[in-house]
């Protein structure tokens, strides 16, 4: 309950800012009309649209003694060409444990360039314990070479700074068979003892997934996923019977609606 309230406290100003933005846009339009008596109201309005993408919904079988893992990584957006509400979520559950990582982000997204969105909002990590709330800013888009890029910086409720870099690339082998390499790197500016985070690299994840797009919406895949934890995170992982390094054979489905 307390968490919810805190989350809302962070979300509400965000929505407020969004509403203000829209209000000022409307104001600008009405000013235009005022200055331009000949102008009619536009016949076409903004198109609102949205999508849900679960890039990863998978089960990983640990190789070489690594634990089995269920993992998800998804996002959804809704809005106009320029202004969108963007939700991101990712997490993983190791077999026989409770959720090891589970986070959700609520962002406002604004198109700032041909290929780039600026995003800002909040992130809530339900796992690991203790749960944390972060402020988020970032950019998401398409880098030269057709790399999907997501750069995010976080500041926790305690003032801890961290960052995340995600890169992926869709290599079309045929029109429907797509090989997707991806990398995710998490960095921290300082040690956060209770989360097992050291300053510097906290973890690196790399994957290679081969999907078959029966449709753009439904694409099952297989692949491998490699995770490496550093510093205290690695030590904690080992202390808890885990490993600093793990490799899984993954199979799952990509959903895009």
């Amino acid at each position, binding site marked *: 309950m307390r968490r919810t309230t805190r989350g809302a406290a962070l979300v509400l100003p965000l929505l407020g800012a969004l509403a203000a933005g829209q209000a000022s846009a409307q104001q600008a339009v009405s000013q235009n009309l005022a200055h331009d008596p000949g102008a*009619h109201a536009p016949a*076409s309005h903004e*198109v609102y649209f949205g999508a849900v993408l679960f890039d990863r919904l998978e089960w990983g079988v640990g190789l070489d003694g690594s634990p089995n893992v269920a993992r998800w990584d998804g996002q959804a957006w809704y809005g106009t*060409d320029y202004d969108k509400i963007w939700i991101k979520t990712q997490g993983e559950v190791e077999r026989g444990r409770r959720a090891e990582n589970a986070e959700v982000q609520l962002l406002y997204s604004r198109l700032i360039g041909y290929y*780039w969105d600026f995003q800002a909002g909040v992130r809530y990590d339900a796992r690991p314990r203790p749960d944390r709330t972060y402020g988020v800013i970032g950019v998401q888009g398409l880098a030269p070479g057709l790399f999907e890029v997501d750069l995010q910086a976080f500041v926790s409720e305690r003032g801890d700074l961290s960052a995340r870099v995600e890169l992926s690339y869709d290599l079309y*082998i*045929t029109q429907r068979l797509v090989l997707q390499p991806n990398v995710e790197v998490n960095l921290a500016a300082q040690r956060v003892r209770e989360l097992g985070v050291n300053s510097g690299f906290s973890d690196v994840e790399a994957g290679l997934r081969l999907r078959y797009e029966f449709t753009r919406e439904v694409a099952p895949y297989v692949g491998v996923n490699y995770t490496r934890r550093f510093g205290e995170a690695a030590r904690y992982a080992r202390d808890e019977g885990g490993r600093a390094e793990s490799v899984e054979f993954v199979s799952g489905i990509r959903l895009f609606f």
Partner: protein
Amino acid sequence: MAELSLPRRSMLAAGIAAIAAPALSRSALAQPVIGRMMPREFNLAIEHVSLNITGSPRSAIAVNRSVPAPVLRFREGEEVVINVANRLRESTSIHWHGLILPSGQDGVPGISDGFQGIAAGETHQYRFPLVQAGTYWYHSHSGTQEQAGLYGPLVIDPARAEPFGFDRDYIIQLSDWTDENPHRVIQNLKRDAGYYNYNKRTAASLANELARAPNAQAREAIIRDRMMWGEMRMDPTDIEDVTGYTFLVNGRTPEQNFTAAYRPGETVRLRFINSGAMSHFDVRIPGLEMTVVQAHGNNVQPVAIDEFRIAPAETFDVLVRPTGGRQFQILAESMGRQGFASASLATQNGLPMLPLPSHRERPLLTMADMGGNYGPRGLDRGTLRPETDRPGQIAPMESMDMGGMDHSGMPGMSGMGSGGAQGGMQGMDHSNMPGMNRGAPAPAGRGGRVQAPSGTAPMDHSTMPGMDHSNMPGMGRSSSLASDPMFRLASASIPSGSVPGPGNFTLAQATRGQGGMSGMDHSNMPGMDHSTMPGMDHSGMPGMGQPQQARPTQPRRPQGQQNPPAPRRDQRSAAPAAPDHSAMGHGAPGTGQVGQVDTSAASAHAGHGGMTPPDPFAVNTGAPPGARVLTYRMLRALSNPYPVREPDRILEVRLTGNMERYFWAINGNRFSEAQPIVLTLGERVRMRFINETMMSHPMHLHGVWMQPQVGNGAQNPLLHTISVKPGSTLDVDVEADAEGGWAFHCHMLFHMETGMMRKVEIRRQPRVASNG
């Protein structure tokens, strides 16, 4: 009182498209119908119907329960009243495409004077006089209703005899049908602009290309080309945004085989209308020559062709003379080669369709389509208040900026931009203006940019499709066409004295000229496969790496060694090899010999050095060598109500958008955020279209004619829709002689819906300000 032109109250009543052959009897033609006491009245009811095109029923929008909507047949000079009843659950509208009428009758909600659409359940009365004749069409201007079936043909019989004769008259209305909800199509494009593209470049296609490449150089070029497109985050295979279409002729699938019946020896008029929401078609009738007699409803000097490309919303009337009782196939292949619309010309109805040919090679976008050297920009945009590009609407151009030239800073060029200086340029033949040849000094300041890797890549012909003509079908056909007596038909049937100028005689010249072209057998020509050509070092071409050597007024033509000089520029551009090459320096239109006021963009830019913009009029349908492909330049208006004069000002109309996010715009502002373009009644403006995107945009301006400056002077054609190719710059003159609010938009439906639209206001009072 209610009367419908040729009404058939059944779905897909293809019969509606056949206009009774003797309808244009000579006596009827001689009698203008001006002076009717009462306007004729028509009733149209718009409603949802279930339509089954592909095998599964879908919701469509019909007029009088017909998809396409019934033929409306009017007479020039009469006044008509059209009652449109909206039985949908949403607002609707009908726009009379290409008709010159009062703004309030034009039917665009929120733009036409006083018109806000027809609310659900209401009936709206249109009433307007018909001041023109020809082939037009009508369609909804609300949302995506046009894609759902709300389109129909509109034919206006002339008050006076047309300068050509024919025995039979058919409408060939092309369209594209999707089982998907059109709103869903937009959503799909917005969440993934490549959603419908299953012709992407893949690792498999790369392996194929590499295996086929003749040598290491070619392989290197292929790799470099791939990397370059990736670097630019663009997709060269993005020819058509939407796939999954079934293409129709008069509402019929190829299997349903709409048949235009003829008797051997008859002359048949085919009124082609492209009502496709998102589809360009390449049209041909294998074995038959076509003579274009009208373009967009207006008479043109008859011109014999083998093929033409028709952009959405365009109409072309052609005459054909099928002989021998054969069944001929009218083929309209979509530009992206996803399918055919097809119909038959046969001596009887009910024959099965002829088997469809295999598809021609899919076009690939080239660096020329990317543009990058558009000439001076920053001109008057015609808005009352200054307007700037919104972020995210202009593709980053660094890697495409071949010449890297900022023409606006060039001495002598600044005058080109402002309307005020135009007056002093009257009568100048710009092609002879020494001051225009600024190729040498211009790039000096930023010469380093020219060496960018992307600057060389477009010259790799080995990656260009369709360059190897040796295995193309129909190589021998063209010569037999040239000897076909078809031409006599058209010229013989022209009543003597009714054609102003030497129209029909130029026609004969064209035939002769073509004969020389069509006799060529390219299949034996060494070097047409450029990938194997040694010494194709294009770096010596004007502006392609050594700009200081540029001699833009005399562009060198590397393939001139193989190609005998074509007799006329427009025929050369019709040759299939030309369009791609035209981007590289020899695309400069030969405007020098024609109208002295032809300060067209292409000719103005031809002398800037650097990479010459692509020939905006070249059309590459993938036709076999020697085939005559219609271009705007081949269209010569038989009459033009407007005097030839210099424009009062030049308006910049940059076609922009974000292909990654799938929204489109004019001058970097989507319709929802854009100001109207304001013109003064009576002025002549030159719209300088600059297509900065990689798609073709058929731009339609309501209410007034557009006159593309194709270099035919007083005979420049009058069109209602101008297809602007990717990366090209082209000038279109508009006489602002119709007061009121007019829609101005791309006729690719989803481009319009996602922002490529403006309101053009033609006002009596002078403009108060501009940002020119």
